[in-house]
């Protein structure tokens, strides 16, 4: 009866649902021996899932799309039946950039529009003085971080392809790179933003939860061939992850979760460092503190449901920034990558609340909204973009055409 499943993960806090599934016994209760293997790069995760070392893995939300669209070497067809949570990222800048932004009207309030306007003014001032463009780092080209940083800047009138430089830096190196002046800012998940604040070398200027409320971040990527050969094991895994995610969300378990993640084989950082992501209470730098609703959501708001609209939004950004060409074939690949059907069929026996639709209009919910669903009540959203834009997955062509205009105006 038992299933043995090997999962790769990166030492980031949002691997917590996978880690707790094993460490708190949720996997064992579903008859799964869940083997977790820590990795050092997303490239390793991609390679090892492709050659069969891993059956499933902790992945950046756009990464399975990039695999299926043939954007990376050695990729295998990967599907997404489960999301590991919403939010969790911040944009952090150096003290020098923060001072420049403050001189142009930025305040320590995380307001994306205000911070973006100040950053744009600073960028234009520097360009006028003939200085090098600011250099921002993200963790991977095909990441929520890269796309939300670009989305924010473009919506604030900055062309991220021309007016700044974007480089790739592994998350644990971000704070050091900022302190050493190799980069001027970055977008990364916690705790790597608070790390710069604690070191006195950076300021958090905005957060993912304010750029796009309750937006997708990491997912469970599954090798499609494995999923087809092991439907029962996959369904059992999804149930284990569901129970694990609910446990992770409960504030009563946060101390214990932080202690588990602190072990050297997992995140390997002291529990105190993990508190900002668990509580949404951030120190922004310079003594400013802020509490953010829905900063990181591992379970509530249908956080684990693999919305096709999330995948399709990532696809529109891949098109926008030239990572992939918009064709009917590519769109079909993007549409098939996230698999709410597998999530629904695995969780149906539990009688829990399940969204009835596979996609939603992103940005349409201005407030938390109870929705009709099978079994029990479910609350979704709010899911607004900071610039008030709406993403209707049924109107992809218009959305893609519209965002080109945003860029041209920059």
């Amino acid at each position, binding site marked *: 009866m038992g299933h043995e499943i090997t999962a790769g993960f990166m030492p980031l806090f949002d691997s917590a649902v996978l880690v707790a599934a094993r460490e708190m016994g949720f996997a064992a209760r579903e008859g799964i021996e869940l083997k977790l293997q820590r990795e*050092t*790069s997303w490239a390793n995760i991609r390679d090892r899932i492709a050659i069969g*070392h891993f059956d499933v893995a902790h992945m950046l939300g756009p990464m399975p799309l990039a695999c299926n669209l043939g954007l990376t*070497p050695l990729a295998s067809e990967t599907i997404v039946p489960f999301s590991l949570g919403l939010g969790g990222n911040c944009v952090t800048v150096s003290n020098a950039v923060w001072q420049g932004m403050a001189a142009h009207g930025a305040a320590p309030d995380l307001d994306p529009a205000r911070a973006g306007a100040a950053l744009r003014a600073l960028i234009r001032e520097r360009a006028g003085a003939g200085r090098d463009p600011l250099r921002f780092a993200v963790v*991977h080209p095909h990441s929520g971080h890269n796309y939300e940083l670009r989305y924010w800047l473009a919506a604030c009138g900055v062309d991220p392809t021309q007016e700044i430089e974007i*480089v*790739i830096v592994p998350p644990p190196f971000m704070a050091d790179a900022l302190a050493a002046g190799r980069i001027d800012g970055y977008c990364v998940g916690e705790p790597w933003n608070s790390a710069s604040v604690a070191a006195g070398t950076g300021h958090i200027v905005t957060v993912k939860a304010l750029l796009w409320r309750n937006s997708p971040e990491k997912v469970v990527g599954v090798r499609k061939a494995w999923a087809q050969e092991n439907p029962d094991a996959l369904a059992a895994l999804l149930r284990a992850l569901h129970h694990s995610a609910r446990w992770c969300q409960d504030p009563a378990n946060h101390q214990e979760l932080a202690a588990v993640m602190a072990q050297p084989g997992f995140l390997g950082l002291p529990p105190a460092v993990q508190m900002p992501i668990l509580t949404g209470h951030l120190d922004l730098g310079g003594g400013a503190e802020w509490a953010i609703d829905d900063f990181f959501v591992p379970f509530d708001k249908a956080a684990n449901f693999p919305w096709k609209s999330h995948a399709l939004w990532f696809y529109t950004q891949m098109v926008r920034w030239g990572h992939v060409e918009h064709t009917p074939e590519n769109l079909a690949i993007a549409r098939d990558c996230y698999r709410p059907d597998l999530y629904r069929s695995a969780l149906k026996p539990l009688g829990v609340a399940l969204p009835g639709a596979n996609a939603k209009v992103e940005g349409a919910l201005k407030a938390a909204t109870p929705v009709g669903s099978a079994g029990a009540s479910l609350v979704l959203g709010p899911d607004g973009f900071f610039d008030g834009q709406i993403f209707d997955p049924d109107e992809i062509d218009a959305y893609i055409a519209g965002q080109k205009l945003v860029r041209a105006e920059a």
Partner: protein
Amino acid sequence: MVRSSLAVLVIDENRIRASIIEAGLREAGHERVTVIHDVTGIARRIAEIEPDVIVIDLENPNRDMLENMFQLSRAVKRPIAMFVDRSDQASIEAAVDAGVSAYVVDGLRQERVKPILDMAVSRFNAFSRMARELEEARSELESRKVIDRAKGILMKSRGLSEEAAYTLLRKTAMNQNRKISDIAQSLVTAAGLLGPLEDE
């Protein structure tokens, strides 16, 4: 050996392993081999070297940065794909098992590059074996030391001969289904806690 004009770049933070690979490549007739330990400023180095083959260890967290650079940077003029032929699954598996990855300029013929990859894989495996043997030798030495100390404690506290002390340790280990060195370590720890049974 075949003389090759291929430029090979080895990126490895482990200096010993990097030099083992470099030596292997040179022995095989590759003269244009460059080794980089630190990826700071690597874009410029790659532009200078114009490598045909890049070998990198899988432990290196900078693989994502490098792949992005290969795809985007103007410094690397030609697209670079991992391995020569993605249908060669066995080679790819052998490389990942060994802990090494490689990027090859698109369009290079497989027979020119495969020997380089095979060499890297076998040297990586040789290095892992060496590191493992070294670790085993070190822990063997450590357990011998701790067993000697445990014997000393037993000889002193129970008036046993060295042989009788060792026999007692071995019997206890067998009864408890544990290693002699574990029993010895427990005894040394306990003796340390209980007071100055030893002269140390």
